């Protein structure tokens, strides 16, 4: 078929499209996966029993802000790389800022604490399970973002895969923080980040296979 004929055929199919397809798909994805991950967390790990008391502590809210801002930045990054020609842009800074902030806070806490307490600040009591449980709770969001991206058109597939994994990991961490008893910044900065990087690496490795269109 020659190109003019093709154009003529395509232009007969100019049905109107709804604007903001990406925003709509990603809000559905985020809503369902938050629900899904919360159900998984509550039924398998349990919400921390002293959640109400913990909610009085500034460090609890610091933790929530840390993971929630990463989840939001991950979502925006995934949304941007789902659209052809849209650069990561400010989303890249939004991804780095919370990590830098928690790193600074961790350094301050470590410097100001007794020698003997430092390893406790870093390892807490749950470092062995924390990264894996975060990675586990990232699964609903991983599937939801995959669905969202399949309906859009990512063109840089490894980057899109990594963004998919990171958004999923941060959502997993956000939900996990309602179970997790740890509040020390060194713990959060290291083990939470590690937990989020597991799905990021998986997404990056699978990106070019899963996201092809």
């Amino acid at each position, binding site marked *: 078929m020659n*190109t003019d004929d093709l154009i003529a055929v*395509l232009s007969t*199919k*100019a049905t109107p499209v709804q*604007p903001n397809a*990406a925003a709509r798909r990603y809000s559905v994805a985020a809503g369902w996966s938050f629900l899904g991950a919360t159900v998984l967390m509550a039924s398998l790990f349990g919400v921390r029993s002293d959640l109400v008391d913990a909610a009085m502590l500034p460090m609890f809210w610091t933790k929530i802000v840390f993971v929630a801002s990463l989840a939001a930045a991950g979502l925006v990054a995934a949304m941007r790389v789902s659209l052809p*020609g849209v650069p990561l842009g400010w989303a890249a800074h939004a991804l780095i800022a919370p990590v830098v902030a928690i790193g600074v806070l961790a350094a301050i806490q470590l410097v100001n604490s007794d020698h003997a307490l430092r390893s406790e600040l870093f390892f807490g009591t749950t470092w062995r399970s924390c990264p894996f449980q975060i990675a586990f709770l990232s699964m609903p969001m991983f599937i939801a973002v995959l669905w969202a991206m399949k309906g859009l058109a990512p063109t840089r597939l490894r980057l899109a895969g990594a963004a998919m994994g990171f958004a999923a990991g941060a959502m997993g961490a956000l939900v996990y923080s309602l179970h997790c008893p740890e509040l020390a910044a060194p713990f959060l900065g290291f083990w939470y980040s590690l937990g989020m990087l597991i799905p990021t690496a998986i997404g990056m490795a699978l990106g070019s296979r899963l996201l092809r269109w």
Partner: protein
Amino acid sequence: MLIENEVVLRNLLIRGLTGDAVAYHEFLKAVSVHLRSFLRRRLANLPHEVEDVVQESLIAIHNQRHTYDASQPVTAWVHAIAKYKLVDLLRRRGNREALNDSLEGDDSLSVSAGTEAIDARRDIAKLLNLLPERQRLPILHVKLEGLSVAEAASLTGMSESAVKIGVHRGLKALAAKIRGGT
């Protein structure tokens, strides 16, 4: 020139996305011209592939038109899609070339294979014209042009299963005609 292009394309596309078929037609025409020069520069060694990639990009642009973000330049969106299709082509060619090298290698052979292929293509075109449209088009798009079933369906306006059935029955009918003809 480039900025002017951007403004024109953007206006046409935005009107096209609301269902204005005339504006959309103009948009696709302007984009095809733009794509041709964009791809010609990048496919300097493979000039005969340019038009194929232009067409594949146009189909992708059409199928993915909901992914245009009005806050972004249209040309960046179009270029990203065209580059994606270009990489796709080079990957496919890379695979095929690797196979061809190991199988052929001899130039005299591949020349005669080339002319034979042209003859065969002419014969196929003749035979295809004997088929009804609902079988001819699916075979043309899927088997000869190498589009996916979904792409052929969106091009012809047929459902995907109708395309598959068309290919299947059409090939059967072709086989019968060839047997009958010799």
